């Protein structure tokens, strides 16, 4: 849109034409443009002029193929993060949305809400903000988008009084997310919501007053399906698993085979087991070699009624997942193959390990380095030594292939391994 271009419609006030955005109102999918226009057209609401200028600026972006926001510094009293400041670079043409900050607000675990609480959140945002809310951002935050600098504090105060708190931004502990978990999923292996809340709430200082080398994210998934992308997208991924055998209801297996056919069962369950741990018996029951099973979840996903995780449940912890910046993509590394998460002490131990990792990160990472990069830089053995974890074959795809390593203390290290194994087997060792 060019300056001075007049609208053909006789719209109240000065309504920006949005020819590009108008094309995104058709089609079967809900349109964010139609939503923005509802805000613009709510003439009795304080946010209507802001929505009008926002639409104008967005249409301008569509025409110029460029963004026109810049960052800055905005925060609420006592906090250093949680607000994403946005100042318009084209405020001369779109003055009402010249300040369009986002409040990142932490969601409840599992993203559960009542309609009542959603209405209250809407009412606050209608009063202080633009009326535009995203459920949710990629880190899990409820994103209240579009707030003036002046309204930021009162908006936060009202959210806060309702029991909501700001999330992370900048070099800090970030907002976390967890899957629906045991609230509604039979595949859940621990109380994701409790782990999520207790862990994050222990480190709120690291979230609200950014002082880490770079971002640090926790994510909590109840099983290997990893519905919140924890391994790819978090520095500290907690993934549910179990140690004992998969539970099989053979009657249900037979019913499944009868329903979908033997060939289809073999093709979609037996042949797809990554470790060849399943076979179909002649009587259409399943045999599972649990020692070879890697708890990938596939067979359980296919036969939801016949198969389920074992009883000795817990979680694995993987450290160091992240995307491209700066040294390349990283998936988390398996660092704790199994922890129990049942008692208060178990959850406390999880939090303690989180604290150990955050402290390691704070002390050792370079500026703008993620913990996965720190581990790459110093080597996994040094990281393990720093956080007090012993090497375990589950940490690797395979042992090293390079001989370029000094091994003169190999025997001492091997002795520690055998001592540990003896401990696990309940034996007393000579050194004690």
């Amino acid at each position, binding site marked *: 849109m060019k300056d001075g271009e007049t609208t053909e419609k006789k719209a109240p006030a000065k309504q920006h034409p949005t020819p590009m955005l108008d094309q995104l109102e058709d*089609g079967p999918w809900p*349109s964010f443009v139609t939503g923005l226009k*509802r805000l613009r057209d709510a003439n009795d609401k304080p946010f209507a002029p802001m929505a009008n200028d926002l639409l104008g600026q967005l249409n301008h972006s569509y025409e110029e193929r460029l963004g026109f926001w810049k960052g800055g510094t905005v925060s609420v009293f006592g906090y250093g993060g949680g607000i994403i400041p946005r100042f318009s670079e084209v405020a001369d043409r779109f003055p009402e949305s010249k300040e369009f900050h986002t409040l990142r607000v932490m969601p409840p675990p599992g993203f559960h809400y009542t309609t009542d609480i959603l209405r209250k959140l809407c009412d606050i945002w209608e009063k202080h903000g633009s009326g535009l809310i995203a*459920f949710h951002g990629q880190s899990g935050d409820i994103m209240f988008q579009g707030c003036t600098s002046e309204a930021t504090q009162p908006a936060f105060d009202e959210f806060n009084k309702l029991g909501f708190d700001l999330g992370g931004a900048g070099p800090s502990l970030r907002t976390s997310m967890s899957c629906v978990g045991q609230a509604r999923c039979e595949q859940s292996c621990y109380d994701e919501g409790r782990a999520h*809340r207790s862990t994050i709430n222990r480190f709120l200082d690291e979230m609200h007053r950014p002082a880490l080398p770079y971002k640090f994210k926790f994510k909590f998934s109840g099983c290997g399906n990893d519905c919140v992308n924890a391994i790819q997208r978090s520095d500290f991924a907690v993934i549910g698993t179990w140690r004992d055998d998969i539970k099989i209801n053979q009657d249900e297996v037979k019913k499944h085979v009868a329903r979908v056919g033997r060939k289809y069962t073999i093709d979609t369950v037996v042949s797809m087991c990554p470790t060849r741990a399943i076979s179909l018996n002649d009587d259409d029951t399943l045999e599972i070699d649990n020692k070879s099973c890697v708890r*990938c979840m596939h067979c359980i996903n296919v036969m939801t009624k016949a198969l389920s995780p074992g009883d000795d449940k817990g979680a694995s912890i993987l450290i160091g997942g992240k995307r491209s910046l700066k040294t390349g993509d990283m998936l988390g590394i398996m660092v704790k193959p199994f922890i129990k998460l049942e008692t208060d002490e178990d959850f406390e131990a999880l939090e303690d390990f989180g604290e150990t990792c955050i402290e390691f990160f704070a002390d050792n990472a370079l500026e703008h380095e993620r913990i996965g990069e720190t581990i790459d830089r110093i080597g996994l053995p040094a990281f393990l030594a720093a956080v007090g974890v012993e090497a375990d074959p589950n940490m690797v795809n395979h042992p090293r292939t390079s001989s370029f390593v000094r091994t003169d203390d190999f025997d001492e290290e091997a002795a520690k391994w055998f001592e540990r194994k003896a401990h696990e087997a309940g034996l007393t060792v000579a050194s004690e």
Partner: protein
Amino acid sequence: MNEVTAKAKPRTADETGVPDHIQYMHPVMVANMGNWDYHDRPRAGVLRHVSKSGQEIFTVRAGTQRQMDVFTIRKLCDIGDNFADGHVRFTTRSNIEFMVADEAKVEPLIAELTASGFPVGGTGASVSMISHTQGWLHCDIPGTDASGVVKSLMDYLHKEFIQEKMPNRVRITTSCCQINCGGQGDIAINVQYTKPPKINHDLVANVCERPAVVARCPVAAIRPAMVNGKPSLEVDEKKCICCGACYPPCPPMQINGAESTKIAIWVGGKHSNARSKPTFHKLAVANLPNNPPHWPEVAAVVRTIIEAYKKDAKHWERVGEWIERIGWSRFFEMTGLAFTKHHLETWTGARKTMNSSSHIHF
């Protein structure tokens, strides 16, 4: 707002942290937490979870535009109050879920959602909502507008959202810069810059912390320089990989251009551990134009990939697993896309992506 200015000192935050979720949960879910037995899907968009107690809960999943106005949210709340039991949740892909304990409420709920323009689906082997980022609407460094790309694509993919007719679930993501906030996907639609940053040397000294910017560059292509008598930065354009990492800490190093900001499409990312281990997505095609408001060139490639996958993959194979079976030669053949030198990894760990065996596909 006058009361704020009047106050000498603002309110001190109550650092409440992550709110308690149980207070918002459907009572049947609270009663059966950790005691669920199995689930099935009576139809696309509906999950039925059965507890060991015998209780059931039905979930109806619907797509939203993610960037929602308060009127849309209130509409969803009205539906929740009138047809569900006043409890909702959101999925990681911004779908909304309504939980009802009474099966008789399922069909009227679906009818109301559909009539109100919220497509019911996104379960099982469907194409779920595209996870996306902020784009031109709100980001300070965007190369494109995620919401628009997503709206255009979901209009086209609507049918695959409301039915479960794909080989397995398809997770699509979009990202408006190479930081890739949208994450990994079976298909990822990401901005790919193609030109080095254009530097406004008048502003660098005042706006940018120059040593931090130098340190940010993954290929050490940025160095301090005096330009027109002012301290600034310069880029060795032969080394520059046009990643845009310098742009967020130094906005005068503009990486975007109306023509030079392009779109690349990546395939085969998977976050689940089911069957194969999690994988990153891999380059399928680059240099597609950033063409609002409908991004037709992007949509055409996505359509081609989805159709090839739908036709050829075995049940439960994700896009990456399908390609692993048929081989990359066949993927490029089936999709009609070009394989170029730019598909050869040159970054950290490149050698591990090469084929060092005699295994080949014809």
